[in-house]
């Protein structure tokens, strides 16, 4: 499933771009993310994303790889992980673009999310709603972080 969100942030583009590389703070914007670790600066990271829907809990230890960087305007990242308890594999391709918009910056997040395995089939509807919700909240959180500073 593809989800796209765009937010306008009252901060200059350089500030927004730098924020994307402030991995602990960026990870803090992802709902349910914790234990963020740098394996190789600007290349590979790991994190655990946990969430729950009613009684169903998931916990994905993710490996996050930076696939392509076009500083200071575009960043592509791939994350994947397998749930520890339930049969489910998640793959996210994230395409983040940072464009100046007069005195502000337009941050566009395009996520291509796949959940495979039993979780993906049985939980499909839930995942669609959750995926949209997470990307939404991520974009809002990034804006909130940057506008609080600025």
């Amino acid at each position, binding site marked *: *499933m593809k989800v796209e969100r765009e937010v306008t942030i009252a901060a200059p583009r350089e500030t927004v771009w730098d924020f994307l590389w402030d991995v602990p703070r960026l990870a803090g914007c992802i709902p349910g993310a914790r234990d963020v670790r740098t394996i190789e600066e600007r290349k590979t990271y790991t994190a655990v994303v946990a969430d729950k*829907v*009613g*009684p*169903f*809990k998931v916990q994905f230890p993710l490996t996050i790889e930076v696939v392509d960087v076009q500083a200071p305007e575009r960043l592509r990242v791939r994350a994947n992980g397998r749930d520890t308890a339930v049969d489910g594999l998640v793959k996210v391709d994230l395409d983040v673009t940072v464009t100046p918009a007069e005195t502000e910056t337009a941050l566009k997040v395009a996520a291509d999310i796949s959940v495979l395995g039993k979780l993906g089939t049985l939980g499909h509807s839930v995942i*669609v709603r959750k995926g949209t919700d997470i990307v939404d909240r991520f974009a809002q959180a990034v804006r909130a972080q940057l506008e609080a500073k600025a």
Partner: protein
Amino acid sequence: MLRPFELSEPTSVAEASELLARHGDAARIYAGGTELILVMKEGLVHYEHLVNVKTIPGLAGVRLDAGTLRLGAATSHRALERDPLVRQHFPAVARMEADVANVRVREVGTLGGNLCFAEPHADPGTLLQVFDATARIEKKGSARTIPLEGLFVGPFETCLEGDELLTEIVVPPLPSRSAAAYLKFGFLERPSVGVAVAVTLDDGHVADARIAVGCVGPVPRRMREAEAELRGKPRTETGAALATAGRIAGRAADAITDLHGSAEYKEHLVGVLLRRAWDQALAAIDGSPRR
């Protein structure tokens, strides 16, 4: 193979409530198990402790109390489908129950279990809302009653506290010159769209219109803005109002594109089913002086 669990068999609501409180998240109520055992078998969830509520006397059964239907939460779908009181006085409910899943699920699965599991793609929660049904929720030492609509918080999530049980669903009768209808559509195992209406006529006008949509959004709910389009209209002039109500309800249903279909398709179906359910309800009113 299911993972092992302990089974408790309380003989009172208070005892069940205590067990739930004691074991917290590790315990779950077990009635028919048609939803619960399924997800436990799939490995999506595990409970170390199941609390069997079928051993609590009085939790299942159908009573008609001065025209109001009182349904024990542990009553099976099949019992509701076949109950003479339900069939005579609340025929739309009997018909909806007759079409839940398949006969084996209906024999074992309970109304309370269905409502409390809160799987969005289900039927009873949608139809019962157009009757303004209420839910009686009990725990050790206290009880509360809420509109059924308030039970559903999100997909697979109810407002029940950890130590509470749903014990009874109370369905008041519709006024005279009223009827309800429920229609659903689906091509997967569970319905993709469900629409319920209840119509009351008065002197050729729509005195009341109640609409609920289920399966589409995260919870089944009433569509009050859509209802307002129809109230007061002469029954012969509801064509445009139904189309508008259908559009409003479709949009308000919060459809997403998933394996059940595109959001646009589901919105479209809401309108179609609304119109058909409306016609069915009117035909039922015309066909019987009472309901």
